[in-house]
Each structure stands twice: as structure tokens, then as C-alpha cells.
């Protein structure tokens, strides 16, 4: 079945879509990032408040221009990373988010992974822009989820060219 028709959402997706946790711009964010593009119909902004000493995420929030699963995935991720160190937060993958949501339809993979991409960009930016140093555990090469965000943004450029914008 799933191969021919996109599987409907699990209830948790709808729950977070109805009542998104940690929604909204954070004015006092330590660091901010984004991933995706409106042209693709999927974009996420991620805000982290970081305790500089412990490197613990004390608060995070998001904004999303995207489908219900995009919104739910971002919200779910903000819940998962609360009070986690940046190193712990880095380790969350798309599969973890999807599992926490009760499974995402395969056709919606890119929505969930966009949230992870945005978080990782924020973590990188934190070390690069604020700390000016790179911890051991942070890989130099882009991770899969970060690459996915890049791909999606590249697609947006292509779409824009296709439609001569």
C-alpha cells in the first residue's frame, strides 16, 4: 500500500500540528538558522537559547512554512533537544524524529529531515560565529541531513529558473 499511496500521518503529527510546541521567533536566541526554501514549499527557521558554559540548549523554538509533517517534525525536535547538550542534540537524526512522531510517510521524508538540517546548521553556526572553534565531535563534512537541506535549496533555484522568476 505504502508504495502506491502516501501513508496518512500518525496521530502525533496531527497533535503537534494542532498545538505546536515551542512555536515562534525567539528574540533573545543565542543562534538562529534556517533551511529549505519557500519555492519548494518547505522552509524552517530554528532558534536556540544556549547556556554558554554547559553548552546545554535551555530553550529552542521554530517557525515553519511547510506542511503538517514539517511543522510537527520541527516542533518534535525542539521538544527532544530541550536540556540536551549541543553534542547530544547533534546526534538526533531524521529517523529519531520520525520515530517520535509515530512514523512519517516515506514521501514526507524531506520535511522531517529539513528540521534536523536546520538544527545542525544552528549548532555549526554557534561554534563558528560565536565560539570561533570546532569541537572534536563535530564532523567537518556535511552530514546527510544538512546535505538534504542544501539539495532542497538547489532545487528551489532550479524551480525559479524553470519558471523564469
Amino acid at each position, binding site marked *: 500500500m505504502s508504495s502506491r499511496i502516501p501513508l496518512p500521518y500518525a*496521530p502525533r503529527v496531527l497533535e503537534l500540528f494542532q498545538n505546536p510546541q515551542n512555536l515562534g521567533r525567539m528574540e533573545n536566541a543565542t543562534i538562529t538558522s534556517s533551511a529549505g526554501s*519557500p*519555492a*519548494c*514549499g518547505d522552509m524552517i527557521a530554528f532558534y536556540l537559547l544556549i547556556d554558554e558554559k554547559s553548552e546545554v540548549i535551555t530553550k529552542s523554538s521554530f*517557525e*515553519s*512554512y511547510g506542511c503538517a509533517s514539517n*511543522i510537527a517534525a520541527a516542533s518534535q525536535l525542539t521538544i527532544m533537544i530541550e536540556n540536551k547538550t549541543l553534542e547530544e542534540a547533534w546526534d538526533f537524526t531524521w529517523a529519531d524524529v520520525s520515530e517520535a512522531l509515530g512514523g512519517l510517510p516515506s514521501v514526507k521524508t524531506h520535511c522531517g529531515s529539513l528540521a534536523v538540517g536546520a538544527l545542525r546548521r544552528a549548532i555549526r553556526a554557534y561554534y563558528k560565529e560565536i565560539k570561533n572553534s570546532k569541537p572534536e565531535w563535530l564532523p567537518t563534512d556535511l552530514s546527510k541531513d544538512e546535505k538534504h537541506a542544501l539539495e532542497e535549496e538547489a532545487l528551489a533555484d532550479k524551480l525559479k529558473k524553470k*519558471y523564469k522568476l
Partner: protein
Amino acid sequence: MSNVEDLLKQHGKAIKEVYLDWENGTRIEEEVLEAMKPFYLEKQFGNPAITHRVGWETYDFYVKAKTTLAKPLNVQPQSIALTHSFTESNNLAIKGLAKMNKKRKKIIVSEVEHLSVIHTAKSMFSDDYKVVILPVSNDGTVNVDMLQEELDSETLLVSLQSINHEIGTIQPVREALEIVKDFDEKIFFHTDATSAFGRIPLDLSNLDVDLASFSSNRILGPKGIAGLYIKEGIKLKSIYEGQLSVETLSPDVENPALLAGFAKAVELQFKQFEEIREHTIKLRDKLMYGLHTSIERTDINGPAGNRRAPDNVNISFLGCEGEALTVDSSMNGIYASSGSACTSRVLMPSHILTAIGRKPEEAHGSLLMKVNRLNTEEEIDYVLEKMPKIIERIRSITGGIQI
């Protein structure tokens, strides 16, 4: 196996429900089902060529039902072939014609045709056919000047829809037909009239097209049966093989129950043609202008006034993603669809919205709502009451993201 029941529990049921997604699913009326019943329960009607009482009754029924179908088009009953769907009608019209007329190899369609026309035309392309896809203006109107330029002695077929199914543009079919036939009588002209049948007058004895597709489910008849008008003298090759009739023509789909429903739906739709027209135009304008006035940053997709289909509302809400919109609307009991990439099976925004020059982010934020004789003013009031809050909530999730 499926957790959909849990999903539906989470979704909850709105106090009031307003169904506007007639493009994607329809129901039929009690009266139509009543017309179908005897063919399901009492008669073994099936094959009108069989030489016994039941076969002759079937034959008799076919003659009468086809007469009913042919009447609003003002054509002869024997010029209507029955298919399973308008997708099949469109495939049969294009491929069936090409296979019987192999001398000419150029097919001209517009970029806002239904995918069953565009994909069929493109599928010919590989067989060394030339396919020309005409552009449209920003309200979706096919550019007939470019049509004129593209005609040549190689041209086999021009296929232009009567009404666009997504943005409601009433196409200049008569003008296009005159251009084509003035250039060369021998070029065939097909119109996909699926979204026009029952909405605007289609007198094919006057609008002298060669082929026209129309469908039962689009006028609240049962799914699974559709028609293709084939002008006398035109031969089509069947698109699949089986028990063919004596002629090379595709055999009529033999489904008396569905045919009975189709015929009854035609009767109902055309008995009250003017009333339905006025009713839907009223609901359409109320809904379309109501939303446009009460909600900021909205764009109406498609033309206004009498160049728009009576039943079509299509609006882009900037800063909203369409899939989220359909889900939130659903939780408020309002059912509609979107041209968003996220709701399509191929994850691309509607080819029609991008054809009229909408940016992808405008296409993603679109909502398609159709109205028909089963909808009421009160339903539209409900939608107008709910939508501003829905849009506001979705926009609040988008927040400061620049669209």
C-alpha cells in the same frame, strides 16, 4: 495494520462539514442510485449484442440512455462512445486517432490541459511525433495567435480543453476551432469538455468539434463511466485489445448500472441547467470575493466574471503552505485541495498555476474549492466565517519567514 483510525480520532470531527473538494471525490444523489438499482439487483443486463430477451432489453436500454447523453450535446446517440473515465476518453481520442491516421505527426495541446491530455500527447512524442505545447496568458487563456502560427501540413490534431479544471478558465474553443478549420479542414479538433459539460452550453452540432470528452462523475453521476463524442466518419483504434466490435472502434464499456446512473445525472443536471448555473455562480462569487475581501495577501487564480467557470474558486494565500491549509481546513470541517507540491503525488506545484506565472510559493499556498448544486449559501457562510482564522493560524506558524 493501519493507524488511520487513531489519526481520525486525533483529527476529531467538526460540528459542521462543508465539502468543496468535488475535483477529487464526488457522491451521487438518492435519485441517481434509484435509477441504477434495477440494473444491480434485478436484471443481468450486460451485453447488448446477445440474442435473447435480456440482451434485447439491454440494447433497448442502451439506445435510450445514449439518447439522453447525446441530447444536451445536440448530437446523434450513435456518436457517443462509452469509456471508463475521462482519462480513458482523452487517451482514446489522442492515441486512437493517431493510430488510425499515421500520415500526420504533429499534435498541439495547451500547457494547462489535464495531465491525461498532456501525458498522452507527450507519450506520442517518443514515437517520432512532434508535440507542441501552447502557452497561456496569466488568467489561463490559451494563446490562439500562437496556435495559428503552429499549424502546418503535418498537423494531425489540436486538443484544447473547454474549461480549465483547476482555475476555471473558459477557453476560446470556438475561435481556436475556426482558426484550425480555416487553415485546414483535415486537422482534427478535440476538446476535453470534462469540466465544461453541464456548466456551460455545449451545442456540438454548432460548435463543430471532431472529438469531445465528458464524464459522469463531474456532474454527480457515478464514477467508472465517461463519454467520448466521435463525429460521424471518424475512426479510432481501441487503446486496449479484447472482444472488439465489428468496427475498429473501441467497444462501448458494457456497464448498464453505471450507464443508468450517468443518464440520470445528465437528466438532473440539464433539467435545471440555468438554476444550477445561477446557484453556483452566486456561491462562487460569494466565496471567492468573500475570501478575497476579508483576508489580506490573497490572489485569485484564473479569470473573473463570465470568462470563469460557474463552479470554480481558486485562491492563493501568501505565506501559507497549501498542505497545512488543507489539513487545518479539514479539522474545521472544510474539505478542499491545493496546488501545493506537498499535496501532489510527484511533489511538484500545480503545472497549471506555474503556467499562469504564479511563483512556486504562490502555487504552494493555493486552495481549490468547487461548488455545485449540493452546496448551500449557509455552507459558504460557514467557510467565510472559519477561513480567516485558519489562514491567521497558518500564517502565525510561518511567522517571520520571508516568503
